[in-house]
């Protein structure tokens, strides 16, 4: 494939000369990551949630960090991903991804590719953008100069895979396209052609066996016990605490005064003409819960479950960690901070109420690993178990790896089991994007791209043949 691009014309004998300004898109439930191939981190990390404002003239959609976190009238917050971990609302997903790409990479319209990557005066997706969908349709297509590599979950349906290439080719005008599985990319980024990839994101945990760079499809396991689950468990810890712990998101607080631990907050709260919707409030609460997960929640490190023997007593005697709500309410959390994540490993330990039923045993992470391994030939199991790649932001939970390692050693006492967990937060969060970034920047990758011409000749079914 030849991309006319004078600024990166090949320089003889120099590797970098082969690079094309491809774009890599790694859409997740929590965030959408986009950036130029060849760069170390995605330049654009946008929320995958969007805002919808219904008014007389129809629905207005809001994308990006600033727009969706500002309480505006009857703003509803939604997410285009379905409960099965496959995109449900394609039209809006397309707009969110397009926003992630155009707001920080290509500009609202296709720009001069020579200037790609230079339009980065800001360092976050701070700009809000009201998108009038009809107006966008009349614009130039946003990706006419950039081949696009998109990542997909290991369980994506054939229909969903065709949808990705249709969006890239029809809506965005991409000259070339490729689809690669997140599990494979994360494995490669860790230097593994074969391994088991454990990805704990927001809506799903998945366990993916990879052999020589190919996903063993029948072995792929997924479950809803992931980041959102840990957040919901944290809500229950707050609710069941005596007295109940008030979860107050930032947007409600006008000003606060410092207060002692455990006493009611002394804050001024904002009032709203139109009260913010439940969905808006819920997303804002989720951000506070993420801070809580980052700084307070700890996974019982094992060996054994939290409920075993006197482990619970031991956990209660461990040093506490303070947390302050946006309104100044604060407390040192002791034993409670081990509760929210325990259900990932032990369904019995999950807190429950009417909205949060007991999780299924087979959805816990150790059981997912076990089921994935069962689908692999016996003689390949030691290879996979010695290459267990940990990825996804929820694996950043404190002591997550220690516990997982104990659980796996207990399941497989006679193999040499080894966890491979990238040390930096960036690598752990963006492993799949980083893997895609390297592949899509390779001169040798030319042969893999599905060109526009091939797409036009063969139709969207070509992804199934070319991107295994």
């Amino acid at each position, binding site marked *: 494939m030849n991309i006319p691009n004078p600024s990166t014309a090949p320089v003889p004998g120099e590797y970098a000369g082969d690079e094309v300004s491809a774009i890599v898109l790694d859409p997740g439930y929590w965030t959408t990551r986009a950036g130029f191939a060849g760069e170390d981190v995605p330049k654009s990390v946008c929320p995958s949630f969007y805002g919808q404002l219904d008014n007389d003239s129809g629905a207005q959609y809001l994308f990006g960090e600033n727009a969706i976190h500002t309480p505006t009238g009857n703003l509803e917050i939604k997410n285009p991903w379905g409960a099965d971990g496959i995109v449900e609302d394609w039209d809006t997903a397309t707009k969110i991804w397009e926003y992630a790409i155009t707001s920080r990479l290509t500009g609202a319209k296709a720009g001069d590719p020579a200037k790609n990557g230079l339009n980065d005066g800001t360092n976050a997706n701070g700009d809000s953008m009201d998108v009038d969908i009809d107006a966008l349709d009349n614009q130039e297509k946003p990706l006419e100069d950039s081949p696009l590599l998109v990542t997909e979950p290991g369980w994506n349906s054939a229909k969903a895979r065709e949808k990705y290439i249709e969006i890239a080719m029809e809506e965005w005008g991409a000259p070339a396209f490729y689809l690669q599985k997140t599990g494979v990319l994360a*494995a490669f980024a860790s*230097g593994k*052609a074969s391994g088991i990839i454990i990805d704990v994101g927001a809506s799903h945990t998945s366990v993916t066996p990879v052999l020589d*760079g190919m996903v063993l499809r029948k072995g792929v396991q997924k479950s809803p016990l992931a980041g959102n689950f840990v957040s919901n468990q944290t809500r229950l810890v707050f609710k069941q605490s005596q007295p109940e712990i008030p979860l107050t998101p930032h947007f409600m607080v006008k000003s606060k005064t410092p207060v002692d631990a455990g006493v009611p907050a002394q804050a001024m709260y904002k009032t709203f003409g139109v009260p913010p919707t439940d969905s808006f409030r819920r997303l804002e609460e989720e951000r506070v819960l993420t801070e809580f997960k980052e700084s307070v929640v700890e996974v019982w490190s094992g060996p054994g479950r939290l409920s075993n023997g006197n482990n619970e007593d031991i956990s209660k005697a461990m040093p506490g960690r303070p947390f302050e709500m946006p309104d100044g309410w604060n407390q040192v959390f002791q034993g409670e901070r081990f509760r929210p994540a325990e259900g990932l490993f032990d369904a019995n330990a999950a807190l429950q109420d009417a909205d949060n039923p007991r999780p299924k045993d087979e959805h816990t992470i150790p059981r997912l690993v076990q089921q994935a391994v069962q689908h692999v030939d016996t003689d390949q199991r030691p290879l996979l178990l010695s290459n267990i790649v940990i990825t996804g932001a929820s694996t950043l939970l404190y002591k997550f790896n220690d516990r997982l390692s104990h659980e796996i050693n207990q399941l497989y006492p006679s193999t040499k089991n080894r966890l491979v967990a990238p040390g930096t937060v960036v690598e752990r969060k963006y492993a799949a994007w980083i*893997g895609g970034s*390297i592949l899509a920047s390779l*001169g*040798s990758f030319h*042969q*893999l791209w599905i060109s526009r011409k091939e797409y036009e000749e063969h139709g969207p079914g070509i992804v199934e043949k070319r991107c295994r």
Partner: protein
Amino acid sequence: MAQSGVSVTPECINAFNELKLGKDIKYIIYKISDDWKEIVVEETSKDGDWNSFRDKLLNAKSKDRKGKEGIGGRYAVFDVSYELESGEGTRSKITFIAWCPDDAPQYPRMMYSSSKEAIKRALNGLAADIQANDADDIEWESILNRVSKGR
């Protein structure tokens, strides 16, 4: 074709066939070329000494895309021979090793893992396949253990 699009030069296969048939060559070390486009033969050796072979892997370097040299990966084929326990003589197994050290920089790690399938597929008649990621994985004991197991 590998997932990276990196290709395998015919000399890789020629060297392998020579090892397979002649039993004169004891090992071959392959590398991905400095322009990261194809897999080439770095060295063939008639010396079957494991430790000197191992040292070569441990000292392997690769350049990243900016040309900076660091810890690198390699592929290798080693004709591993060992005594059968019952005194029934020796056995030899042509063993493929994908050497991708955990402490190598991101770029070579990615390249060696995503290109492995291509070279492995090009070499017909491998008796064992080892993914090695640290110095322990290429200890003779560890290799022997894995190669002599089962078949």
